[in-house]
């Protein structure tokens, strides 16, 4: 067996191919669902994917616990996590870009402000359309709707996420002091806040659909609103699950004051989700 001194290179990787097959089934199944087919293939793909992840991460945890990872391996993991988060930032960047573009360019153009054909666009095609954010387009797609205010649930959710950023930091300090039970307690709090956030978000969606007539089909406002908050909510869910797993590992005393990469990765991810929310809160809800 390799010792922690040399760079650990696993000699066989059986899970990746399972991962590829499961993703293939998932995507193929999802595409068929969208085309009106059944859910079975997609469900099999998703289940297989979860299984693959459990086993793969299981292997990694086992290797980590048996001390096969040198510090250099740890650095590789850290870098990868950071760059992965960077890629996620860019993914959200695309949707924020869409939001800014719709607000700064398309909206005003449709209502006649801007160079070139803007005036004619409004006069000939969409006369009567006045730009004001939020809007559901000159054709008023989706009909009358009400705007999601920032004051109620979203504000509470902001507080929840900010608080969870604090609790996860306390947990981090706890593990740096090798205090496992404190870490687990604060992680539990963080997860709790995370799931509470998701629950409230789901409730907000229910409100939007049931009472505000605010839907994905509510023009560009509904599109950007649900796309941004939806993907964010998905990331919160993933982040909370990851934190939960880290917490469970904490109860098994998997970490030490010097060796707790999995914890840090989860925490970074959580902070990232947090920051994205702040962006959302400002640009989707308040402004």
């Amino acid at each position, binding site marked *: 067996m390799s010792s922690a001194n040399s760079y650990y290179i696993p000699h066989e990787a059986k899970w990746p191919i399972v991962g590829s097959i499961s993703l293939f089934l998932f995507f193929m199944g999802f595409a068929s669902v969208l085309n009106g087919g059944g859910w079975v293939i997609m469900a099999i793909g998703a289940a297989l994917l979860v299984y693959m992840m459990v086993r793969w991460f299981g292997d990694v945890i086992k290797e980590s616990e048996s001390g096969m990872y040198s510090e250099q391996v740890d650095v590789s993991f850290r870098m990868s996590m950071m760059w992965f988060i960077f890629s996620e930032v860019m993914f959200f960047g695309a949707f924020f870009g869409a939001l800014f573009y719709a607000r700064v360019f398309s909206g005003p153009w449709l209502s006649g402000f801007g160079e070139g054909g803007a005036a*004619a666009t409004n006069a*000939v095609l969409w006369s009567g359309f006045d730009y004001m954010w939020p809007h559901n387009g000159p054709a008023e797609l989706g009909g009358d709707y009400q705007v999601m205010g920032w004051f109620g649930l979203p504000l509470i959710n902001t507080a929840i996420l900010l608080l969870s950023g604090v609790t996860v930091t306390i947990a981090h300090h706890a593990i740096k002091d090798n205090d496992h039970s404190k870490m687990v307690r604060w992680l539990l709090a963080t997860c709790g806040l995370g799931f509470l956030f998701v629950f409230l978000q789901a409730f907000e969606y229910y409100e939007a659909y049931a009472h505000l007539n605010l839907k994905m089909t509510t023009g560009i406002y509904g599109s950007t609103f649900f796309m941004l908050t939806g993907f964010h909510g998905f990331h919160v869910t993933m982040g909370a699950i990851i934190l939960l797993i880290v917490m469970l590992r904490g109860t098994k005393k998997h970490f030490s004051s010097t060796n707790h990469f999995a914890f840090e990765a989860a925490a970074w991810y959580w902070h990232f989700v947090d920051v994205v929310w702040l962006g959302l809160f400002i640009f989707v809800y308040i402004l």
Partner: protein
Amino acid sequence: MSIGSRWLVALAVLVSSQQALADINMPVGVTPISKEVYGLHMMIFWICCAIGAAVFGVMFYSMFKHRKSKGAKAADFHESTTVEIIWTAVPLFILIAMAIPAAKTLIAMEDTSDAEVTIKVTGYQWKWHYEYLDSGISFFSSLHPEHNAARQVGSGADVSQFENYLKEVDRELVLPVGKKVRFLHTSADVIHSWWVPALAVKKDAIPGFINENWALIEEPGVYRGKCTELCGRDHGFMPVVVRALPEDEYLAWVEENAPAPAITEADTAASQQVAAADEDADREWAMDELMAKGEGVYNTYCSSCHQANGEGLAGAFPAIAGSAIANGPHDAHISTVYVGVAGTAMASFAAQLSDVDMAAVLTYQRNAFGNTVGDTIQPSAIKALR
């Protein structure tokens, strides 16, 4: 002539005549802008040639002189801040020299003010609709029917026999010479792009938005162009033909084609055909009349998607033969064609077809390709919708 021998002839022509250059270079065009653009194009072309000659010259020189087989011994220099600065700065100056005239031309191109004639150009899959906003003339312009027949897969036509193959339309856009014409570009379905090389005018037609553009044609003549944004199956088959007339001839043409004032007011979009067919729309039409007319309409307007045999293209365009809609209740069938199907290539034909034409093509669909509904859809039913 076979392709091979035509090619030989072309090569011979190429070396011997100026004329052939027209086939391998940008046309100079007939507007002030197109001439400026041509000048710009030639300037950057020659600059690029000069850069290429210099760069490749040095490279080939060293490849011939500094060959091992010629006994060259490798030197060891590998750094010089001075030359790095020089070959950063010199290209920068060349670029600035190119950017200044380019910026000037660009500013001129974007200035659509003070136009005397305004034309709205709307792209459809796969034809153009022209609307003279000042005089109310409006019409569709699609690939000439003979060319359209010849270009079908397996038509067996010898396309080299056609003059201006794929560059001929059923109805040309007529423009005046010597007047600034402003174009408003938009689209009814997907993005198209309206291009006439001789006018140096190319602008995308974006559904839901209007783009502006302009041209001042200096010489009478016929100028041909194409749609240049991929717009689906028949993107290659929506030509643009502009006929530029001297001002008096142009005015005469407008006079002749302008719709009667009353109708202009009532309805701009479909005024022409609708007006002509208005009285026809009220009477009762017989089945064979509708079928005969409907076949023509079908082949002009529908066959590019649903195919001449009504079988469609599986997955992309549904078959009319056996279609539940074409064999079903009138309302759904009419609405499919009158309103279109949102989010698909099936556009609304309300503006393109007169009441009679639409009734005819609907009737035709119900009773052709093996469909045997046996009833007619009367023009009056369409008229009632307007």
